[in-house]
């Protein structure tokens, strides 16, 4: 009798039913560990296999001050990913001079806060961008220039470029153009500074919240994944 009752009432779960599928795809071992399947066996010990956790913010007053300080001293990763990277070079010269805004190009992703995606992103470059982006320490920001990063641009029907870069890494500011003029890129940086001061540029936490979605999108197009699942 009680069995019939339970079966008729869909809200009560019976322990005789099988538990639902965990929904893990094959690159996650459990909640906090990753498989790192792309690496050969002897290298798996060298890389960390923990899943990234969200970074905590501090008290609102201090966070406002820190956001102001972060916006006054953005360090750009000197990695030119596509043709749009040539627009960074006039900005460093005397005419437009981003050093008065506190920005300087840094050669290593460990010390950079801002990565500039310049234009089209081919699959080979996307692997390197993901690698560099995950090695940057947060809070980190992404500025995507040129129309190829927005909707594919000139390479809209190409077999080798991605059409929407924000399915692979979170983007804060887009600057249209082909290429945008240096003044336009400066306006984009100013917009980013306003976003940072308002506390809205939390790309790092967004990436970790939707980590599964980003990682599956990346693994769908990057077929030879011979690096760890998260590049600490």
């Amino acid at each position: 009798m009680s069995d019939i009752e339970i079966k008729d009432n869909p809200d009560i779960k019976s322990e005789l039913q099988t538990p639902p599928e965990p929904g893990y795809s094959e690159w996650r071992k459990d909640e906090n560990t990753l498989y790192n399947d792309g690496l050969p066996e002897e290298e798996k010990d060298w890389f960390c296999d923990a899943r990234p956790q969200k970074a905590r913010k501090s008290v609102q007053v201090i966070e406002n001050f820190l956001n102001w300080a972060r916006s006054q001293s953005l360090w750009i990763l000197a990695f030119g990913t596509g043709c749009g990277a040539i627009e960074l070079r006039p900005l460093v010269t005397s005419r437009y001079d981003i050093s008065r805004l506190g920005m300087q190009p840094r050669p290593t992703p460990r010390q950079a806060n801002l990565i500039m995606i310049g234009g089209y992103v081919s699959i080979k470059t996307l692997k390197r961008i993901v690698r560099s982006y995950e090695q940057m320490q947060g809070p980190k920001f992404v500025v995507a220039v040129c129309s190829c990063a927005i909707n594919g641009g000139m390479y809209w029907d190409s077999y080798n470029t991605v059409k929407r870069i924000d399915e692979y890494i979170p983007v804060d500011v887009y600057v249209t153009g082909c290429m945008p003029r240096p003044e336009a890129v400066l306006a984009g940086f100013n917009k980013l500074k306003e976003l940072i001061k308002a506390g809205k540029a939390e790309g790092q936490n967004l990436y970790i919240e939707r980590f599964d979605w980003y990682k599956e999108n990346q693994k769908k197009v990057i077929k030879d994944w011979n690096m760890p699942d998260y590049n600490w």
Partner: protein
Amino acid sequence: METLYKELKQYFDVDEFSVQKASLAFLRVPKSQLVSLLTHMKDIRGYTHLVMVTCVDYLEQDSFLLTYLLHNYSTHCDLGIQVSISRQNPVMDGIHHLWEQGRVYQRELFEMFGIDFPGSPDVHEPMILEGWQGPPPMRRDFDTKAYSEATYSHRPRDHREPEEYMKQQLYPED
């Protein structure tokens, strides 16, 4: 260039000679005589510079047409040597022993067209398309638009007129 063609006709089965301008000419040679003709041009005729190796896909005639473009530094002339190979089994002799840069061209042709050059170093290593599992993309029967729409997601189109949109943004009181 006509005198060159007449002299070459005595040794090789060259035909289909065409002149584009005074310093650029093309001729065709069968596949088996290509390497000996290139060696002859490099060592004896002074065409020592390999400009490029390209390929055209003739889908209707079921063949690839390879073009080896050579340059002569003393007479400032270019000569294009064309070879037609079968599309069903595209294999060609390598020229990497004559010019080192031939390795790079042969790698590119293998990746983009599927033409194999046995003996060429690293010809099967991926050069630009890492992890590519589809057909060679430069062939005419590969539909790149369909592949792109199937593999990548596209941003939905923005149907606003730019002029009206900017007018609204800049002068909202109108």
